[in-house]
């Protein structure tokens, strides 16, 4: 593939959703046209993402300097193993969620704007994954933020406006702190390009690193919903429409994790900032409050919202341990978590569409009425709890192993306990809504492929990742975040 095509390939994951959203908005009242455009572009996005992964597989990290200026002066887009696999997962999840969204959101008055918002969100997420420039990362964060604001407030009732207010207010704090941190880091190093920062930040006096790194960590931690900075998530996610909630569950928080992973491996290696023990504690607390919330909730989507937080704890744990193995585990778990969270929330959406509410104490009979959904949900439960042979197990195993080998016994203990409690929390939904017999007629027995199709595909992906984990494992192990020479070379390479 020629280099000019490659350079276009690198920006297409951002441009395609933008073009898609422009076209969809121009559809006006023609919903059918929009309904056809949406999956078409999402599919195209997936193809691009696959092509990107193939490129990275063959060439190693590839980058493009936008505007054809040399690095580090241009904004560069770069795909390494981490970025490309995340873009691939994003586009896969987005495609499946959008298929459900076409049906799930169809009766919303501002239907098209929902689709526009989703595409903007996806564009922002891909931009954040691929940019090689710190300030540009901020811009993509803002794009994600405004995209999520739209989705959060569209066609909202009183409760959702309340939830959205909390979401908006708390996320703006993150934005401001992140911007301040960029300003300070720029002032200290004079660089914005990540590879440039990699060299220059290491020349910073050690005693100031903690200060700047804390600001960055704070900004990212809010995005990722790390304890104690997670309150916006359970305040708002459970109010979202089903398909939108699935997209939210899978994407924005993971961008926070990605940013942490990138920043604390490339720009300021975590052990040199003094934040490692802090992060380890936060990981443990995040897992615990997440699962505690999940245990306390009597409502499907509230439970699942808290479980998002619990899985964020696992990811932060992987970053905090900061060994090659733990980073590999984090990447593996990240992909797993994106797939699984979308899956769980789509199941929740399906349950909501069957019953019209989220209270699982008042559901029943799903195992008989919806066997396919039941099988998928059961697999999701055990995968989420980290049971073999599902995808959650491998992520957990690698993290546990990395943790024990690095001497984080207590943290590993918490992680294992949280896995068990996750199982307990989710099995409550299972025993009530699926196993118990329905009162009265019970739910609809028809299969609705708008929901069940994406659910099935996501389940199969999770199953595949569990049964044959080698490709993803080797991909993650080859990401080499702790020794980012390849990344730095690729990012600065064009100027040499």
């Amino acid at each position: 593939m020629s280099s000019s095509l490659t350079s276009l390939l690198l920006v297409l994951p951002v441009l395609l959703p933008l073009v898609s959203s422009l076209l969809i908005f121009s559809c006006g009242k023609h919903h059918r046209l929009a309904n056809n455009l949406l999956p078409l572009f999402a599919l195209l996005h997936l193809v691009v993402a696959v092509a990107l992964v193939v490129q990275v597989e063959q060439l190693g990290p590839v980058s493009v300097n936008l505007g054809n200026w040399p690095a580090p002066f241009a904004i560069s887009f770069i795909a390494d193993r981490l970025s490309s696999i995340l873009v691939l997962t994003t586009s896969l999840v987005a495609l499946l969620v959008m298929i459900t969204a076409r049906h799930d959101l169809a009766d919303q008055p501002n239907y098209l704007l929902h689709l526009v918002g989703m595409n903007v969100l996806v564009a922002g997420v891909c931009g954040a994954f691929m940019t090689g420039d710190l300030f540009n990362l901020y811009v993509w964060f803002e794009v994600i933020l405004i995209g999520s604001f739209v989705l959060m407030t569209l066609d909202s009732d009183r409760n959702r406006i309340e939830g959205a207010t909390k979401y908006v207010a708390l996320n703006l704090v993150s934005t401001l702190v992140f911007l301040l941190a960029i300003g300070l880091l720029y002032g200290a190093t004079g660089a914005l390009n990540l590879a440039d920062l990699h060299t220059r930040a290491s020349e910073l006096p050690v005693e100031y690193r903690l200060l700047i790194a804390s600001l960055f960590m704070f900004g990212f931690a809010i995005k990722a919903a790390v304890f104690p900075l997670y309150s916006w998530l359970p305040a708002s996610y459970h109010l979202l429409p089903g398909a939108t909630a699935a997209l939210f569950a899978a994407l924005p928080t993971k961008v926070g994790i990605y940013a942490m992973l990138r920043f604390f491996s490339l720009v300021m290696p975590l052990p040199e900032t003094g934040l490692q023990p802090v992060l380890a504690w936060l990981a443990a607390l995040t897992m615990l409050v997440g699962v505690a919330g999940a245990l306390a909730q009597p409502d499907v989507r509230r439970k699942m919202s808290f479980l998002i937080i619990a899985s964020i704890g696992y990811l932060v744990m992987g970053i905090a341990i900061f060994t090659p193995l733990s980073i590999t585990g984090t990447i593996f778990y990240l992909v797993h978590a994106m797939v699984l969270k979308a899956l769980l929330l789509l199941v929740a959406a399906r349950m909501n569409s069957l019953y019209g509410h989220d209270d699982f104490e008042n559901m029943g009979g799903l195992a008989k009425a919806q066997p396919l959904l039941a099988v998928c949900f059961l697999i999701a439960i055990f995968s989420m709890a980290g049971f073999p042979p599902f995808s959650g197990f491998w992520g957990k195993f690698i993290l546990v192993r990395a943790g024990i080998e690095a001497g984080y016994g207590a943290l590993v203990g918490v992680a294992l306990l949280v896995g068990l409690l996750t199982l307990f929390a989710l099995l409550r939904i299972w025993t009530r809504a699926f196993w118990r017999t329905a009162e009265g007629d019970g739910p609809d027995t028809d299969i609705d492929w708008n929901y069940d199709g994406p659910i099935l595909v996501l389940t199969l992906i999770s199953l595949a990742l569990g049964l044959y984990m080698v490709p993803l494992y080797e991909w993650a192990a080859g990401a080499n975040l702790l020794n980012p020479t390849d990344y730095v070379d690729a990012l600065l390479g064009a100027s040499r």
Partner: protein
Amino acid sequence: MNLLILKTASHMVSGLMLVFSVFLLLRGHHEAGGGFIGALIAVIGFGLLMIAESPAYVRRRLRFPPEAIALFGLALCLLSGLVGPLFGYPFLTGVWWKDILPLGTPLFFDIGVYLAVIGAVLTILLALDEELD
């Protein structure tokens, strides 16, 4: 009587502001100015007109719905960025036609920003005014 003066004055001032905004937009590449500043001036011009007349009047004068203008502006930004890839350069590479006119894709990019911002801010302004009345 006073209303009439106000209306006439507003029309004149807003017209002037629109001209000024285009001026700011075009000279932005060399002097202080640019798409965003120009757009805000234009918005203020339309805002004056809105206060003097009515939101509906402004909508009529705009001819296109402001959302459409915003999206068109965005599309223009994207398109001007995609000229580079046509010639085998990366996205957003500036392509210039210096020989004919001092025209380049960065100018179109700036015009895109200009339209996007006018459209977006007017969308809110008009909606807010209509909603409050």
